[in-house]
């Protein structure tokens, strides 16, 4: 510890800054309000963050691969509406796989355009945001979708059930997070995602099939969206067509907060989970402090910019930008 210099502290702050900020933040709120750290409150926060979190896991892959996915919000509306509709028409046993297939098809379309045709991901997914919203409205006829018999369906197990006393959305979120963390950190595929996002040209010259990797990241993203739609549908058993609206940017905020660079090549599943939890606990902490829900928007704004700023400031070694 003798050689623990100021520079080391700087490096530590830069590397684990978001985690440290999270811990400090939690301690601060816990001191203000005891209820904040009560186990049921903590479980409640994680549970309500689970839908956002599940989507953020998939978007993490896309962002590390150097792309964006703005279509996840309207894609989740689509999944939710479709699975609720199919529940009554063909039953949940067939309806859930059918919904997954349809959502994966949308993800595959994204992946085809961005991976194989190499179109700009921001614009493609922006177009898809609009197109899928239109698709959802056409599918539902613009009406809200409700399950006829809300009392007697086992379908509510994904959103309202418990597994060993833990709410099932948390179990799904945690399970998916662990699986995807292993996929990203421990498999050749995961390494290729980093390679493609970090330096696409170098990755191509190393023989990595860039198009296929990007395609797969969008497939993963749409799989996560379908899962989120399932939880959402199961939790409420009825939904509006706009249930996922605005989700894409909130998800992106969580991923960025976790420290993934929009340029691609950096970020981890664990950090994204932290980003999601930070957003969730900020919201909860501010509500417990008696503030309105919209105060969190302003706080999130400040936190996102500070987090990214400090991150790049640590990398370039000075606080202020070199832009002339």
């Amino acid at each position, binding site marked *: 510890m003798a050689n623990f210099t100021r520079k080391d502290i700087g490096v530590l702050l830069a590397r684990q800054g978001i985690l440290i900020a999270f811990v400090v933040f939690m301690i601060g709120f816990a001191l203000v309000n005891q209820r904040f750290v009560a186990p049921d409150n903590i479980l409640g926060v994680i549970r309500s963050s689970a839908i956002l979190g599940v989507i953020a896991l998939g978007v993490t892959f896309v962002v590390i691969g150097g792309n964006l996915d703005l279509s996840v919000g309207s894609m989740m509306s689509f999944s939710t509406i479709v699975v609720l509709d199919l529940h009554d028409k063909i039953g949940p046993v067939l309806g859930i796989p059918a919904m997954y297939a349809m959502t994966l098809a949308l993800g595959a379309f994204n992946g085809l355009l961005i991976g194989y045709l190499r179109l700009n991901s921001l614009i493609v997914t922006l177009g898809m945001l609009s197109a899928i919203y239109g698709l959802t409205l056409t599918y539902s006829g613009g009406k809200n979708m409700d399950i006829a018999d809300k009392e007697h369906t086992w379908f509510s197990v994904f959103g309202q059930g418990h597994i060993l006393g833990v709410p099932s959305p948390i179990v799904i979120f945690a399970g998916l997070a662990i699986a995807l963390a292993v996929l990203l950190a421990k498999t050749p595929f995961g390494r290729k995602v980093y390679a493609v996002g970090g330096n696409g040209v170098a990755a191509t010259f190393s023989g990595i099939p860039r198009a296929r990797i990007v395609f797969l990241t969008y497939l993963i993203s749409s799989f996560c969206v379908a899962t989120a739609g399932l939880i959402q549908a199961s939790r409420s058993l009825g939904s509006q067509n706009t249930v996922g609206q605005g989700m894409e940017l909130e998800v992106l905020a969580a991923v960025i907060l976790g420290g993934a660079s929009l340029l691609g090549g950096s970020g981890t599943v664990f950090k994204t989970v932290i980003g999601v939890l930070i957003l969730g606990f900020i919201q909860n902490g501010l509500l417990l402090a008696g503030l309105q829900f919209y105060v969190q*928007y302003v706080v999130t704004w400040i936190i996102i910019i500070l987090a990214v700023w400090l991150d790049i400031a640590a990398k370039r070694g000075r606080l202020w930008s070199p832009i002339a």
Partner: protein
Amino acid sequence: MTSQKNYTKYIKQGAIWGFILVELIFFSVAGHFLSLSDTAFMDFDNMLLLLKQSAPIGIIAIGMTVIMINGNIDLSVGATFALAGIVMLDSMTWPIFAGLGNWVIPVSWLLALLTGAILGGLNGLIVWKTGVDAFIVTLGAMLGYRGLVFMYNGENPTSHLNWTLVDFAEAQFLGIHTASWFFLAVTAIIWLVMTRTVHGRNAYAIGDNREAAINAGIRVGPHFLRNFILIGFLAALSAVVFYSESGSVNPNDGELYELWAITAVVLGGTKLAGGSGSILSTFGGVIAIQLLRKGLGYIGADTETVNLVIGLILIAVLFLDRQLNRKGRGELRI
């Protein structure tokens, strides 16, 4: 070779107008068979109304073009729009302005425009000073400014009707509505700025190659700041024009406006990477989208299909653009 290059360039610049022409012909012909209404689609009054309805997004899209030529993006315009609207309507009821009579109108307009310019300027300052990418800065601001909108008046709408103002907003000068005049004026002025001034030239230069622009002595930071102030101002101007007539702001107003504006700009052929783009083509892009909305309604399609069609067209445009721009068949696919 050069002539072929000019030819391609000519096609690309004219593409959006060709698209508008196709839309007009299609909806006129299809409408002849499908429409339930007796009036022709290309009715003059109908077209004037279309121009008026495209003004709110249009004014923002013009500002977005400048930002995107710079190689930046602004996702916070929708929230700025709502906040400026609230400031305008609310300030008319402030007691300190009670003695002003109708002179309160220019004062409240000025306050709203100032709000927009400050919010835009704050984004620009952060982009300049911290070096954080504009996408992230304005993504954060989109949330933050929306929070400010809610803080102002909770979840309640902010309403105030001033009949002098409504009359002004609904007035038609030479047959063209007030909102349309603002849209046309903004288009003309920004077009002049981008094509005839040093600032415009610098905007293209910076978007094309930021390093080179810095080495050429262009002060990129202050340039960004000016453009962000401009788009904030234009978002507020759009709000001022719109809410003068409607007189009521919901805290959710302006959501997704940023995406509509970006769609119009991209349809007009401006690249996300920066360095190219044209104000007049964006004008065309805005008209094309509004035409599509009205046209689909006219031939009896569900309003829901509009989103679907616009999304797919946006992707198709991107695809065609890629095909036209490909330098040669032998190009390395990386």
